[in-house]
């Protein structure tokens, strides 16, 4: 029996700071995961943590990690050439084939942008298959903004709206929560919209409500949930909500299912 808890080493190719506390790590990895899936990442003797994928490329993948605990502090101490230990990918990603053909609306808050970044890049790379791509991004402050270069690139190809909760020096964009951007959005044709909403729990809740208020059906909305996990395999129980296990049944859910998931 092969041991599904046994991780594989992955060499760090590149380290790119995004903000004061978020850094992108590029890792050598051959088999590409699906956008929205995640890995259990470990630093031996410090522990394991579930981490999503912020970019998928030829022979590599990227993870954008916030320094918030024991494991991530250990990851931040590593240098290019060092190794992380990965097992996965786990879970169901975003239904890209189902999204193709739609007018895609992405609403991402904070580090919630990391797992949807590959979805945005897929939609912009295959623009001819989408009716359009609208991207709403919310960050706590201008200093918390992730993926500046990528966002500048997206602005060439799609409608990108960035807002920050708290303004800062030199900020000329929108200030306020992400839901404030929704009433003025052009959502036509309404029945062709597919929305992807990922972020902190409260941001997701109110963004989904705002979209439903605009007339979207529940099944036009996709969410990705983040919960505590130890195994990623449907065993440890931490991520269970109702009869669903976020690690194996999610982390991406259609909102017509997710609406009934009550922690």
């Amino acid at each position, binding site marked *: 029996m092969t041991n599904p808890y046994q*991780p594989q080493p992955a060499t760090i190719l590149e380290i790119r700071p995004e903000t004061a506390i978020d850094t992108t790590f590029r890792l050598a990895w051959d088999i590409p995961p699906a956008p929205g899936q995640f890995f259990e990442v470990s630093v*031996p003797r410090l522990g394991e943590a579930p981490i999503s994928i912020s970019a998928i490329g030829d022979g590599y993948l990227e993870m954008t990690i916030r320094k918030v605990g024991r494991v991530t502090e250990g990851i931040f101490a590593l240098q290019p050439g060092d190794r992380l230990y990965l097992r996965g990918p786990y879970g169901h990603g975003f239904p890209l084939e189902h999204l193709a053909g739609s007018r895609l609306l992405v609403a991402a808050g904070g*580090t919630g942008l990391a797992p949807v970044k590959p979805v945005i890049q897929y939609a912009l790379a295959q623009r001819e298959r989408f009716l359009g791509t609208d991207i709403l991004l919310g960050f706590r402050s201008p200093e918390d903004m992730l993926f500046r270069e990528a966002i500048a690139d997206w602005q060439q190809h799609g409608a990108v709206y960035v807002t920050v909760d708290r303004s800062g020096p030199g900020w000329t964009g929108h200030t306020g929560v992400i839901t404030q951007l929704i009433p003025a959005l052009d959502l036509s044709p309404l029945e062709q919209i597919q929305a992807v909403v990922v972020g902190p729990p409260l941001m997701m809740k109110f963004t989904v409500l705002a979209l439903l208020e605009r007339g979207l059906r529940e099944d036009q909305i996709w969410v990705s949930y983040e919960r505590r996990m130890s*195994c990623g395999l449907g065993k440890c129980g931490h991520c269970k909500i109702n009869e669903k296990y976020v690690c194996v049944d999610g982390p991406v859910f259609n909102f017509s299912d997710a609406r009934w998931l009550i922690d």
Partner: protein
Amino acid sequence: MNQETLDQHEHGSGETASLEMCRVRLSYKEADLLLGVLASQYRILAPVRLPGRGRFSDQDAIRYGEIHSVGEIVHQERAHFSPKEVVFPISQTLFHLTEDEMHEPAGDPRDLLIFLRACDIHGFARLDDIFLRNGLVPDPYYARRREKVKFVLLECRQSLDAYCFCVAMGTNRTDANAMAVRFADEQLLIEMRDPALFSALPATAEPVKFTPEFPATDSQTVSIPDSDRLQTAIRARNFFAHPMWADYAKRCIACGRCNTHCVTCSCFTTYDIADAQQPLAGERRRVWAGCHIDRFTDMAGGHHFRDDNGSRMRYKTMHKIFDFHQRFGRHMCVGCGRCDAHCPEYLSFAECITRISHVLEEEG
């Protein structure tokens, strides 16, 4: 086993001998001989008394331990901790971590013979659902131990005490056991179902008519909520916000004893540790976790769920008598009564689920 015993149980069946059962009476002395023979192949585990190890001063703990004689088996009362710890230990090393190497620990190669009650045998079926069937792959650590296990049923002719509700949960009967025993006046009545064990019987074993009995009634009335009505109440009437949960919020102290004593609670957290003397040596371990216990949902970054203990009681209760059923087609709770026997606040899970049934009836 003597020829007379074999004859009595094999003649006249027309079937192969392997389909036969062997029913004998043994003195404790003879039973110890049987255990001695079995011990060459099996680690034999049963509820044993641990003097002074109980929760309070001068009380004993009753937990699973290796036995070598029948006299060590505590059969008159419920084991405090369930037998799950034999297969799913409180703390288990997943890997030894030495520099860049990860090595699985070598397991104990011996087979396991576990003395337990019908409810706990059903409890293992629930653990099997999670560890062997849930998700994409079986859990290898659980699977390797589980496949070594044979069950010896400790017969309950009626409810052990006021906490039992196996009849309500439909877990009072079993045929998943290799052997069954009844304790009767310094003697053991034995029904052997697994032919692999027959040869371990002492030659002096006396044939007897013995078929284990099972409890037919619980000593308390427990009503299991109807799943369809519960689903309707949750979705149409916001049942999770019902005032009954606020009562538990006031009383539950989130100690997690219900989780740790439960035979079906299977949650765990993995931790890495480093050796203080040799920082490049360490272990990855998994340790029991429980949904009542603080930090069960805590994530790095500060998000957490179910901060009030009433929500935790609701979450656990739903898992045991609703969610698990949605996923696996049977209830997780097996009615062993340990959660109620060990709650320091005297909260009753049996009453909780009966109360849910009443709320559903009142609301129509």
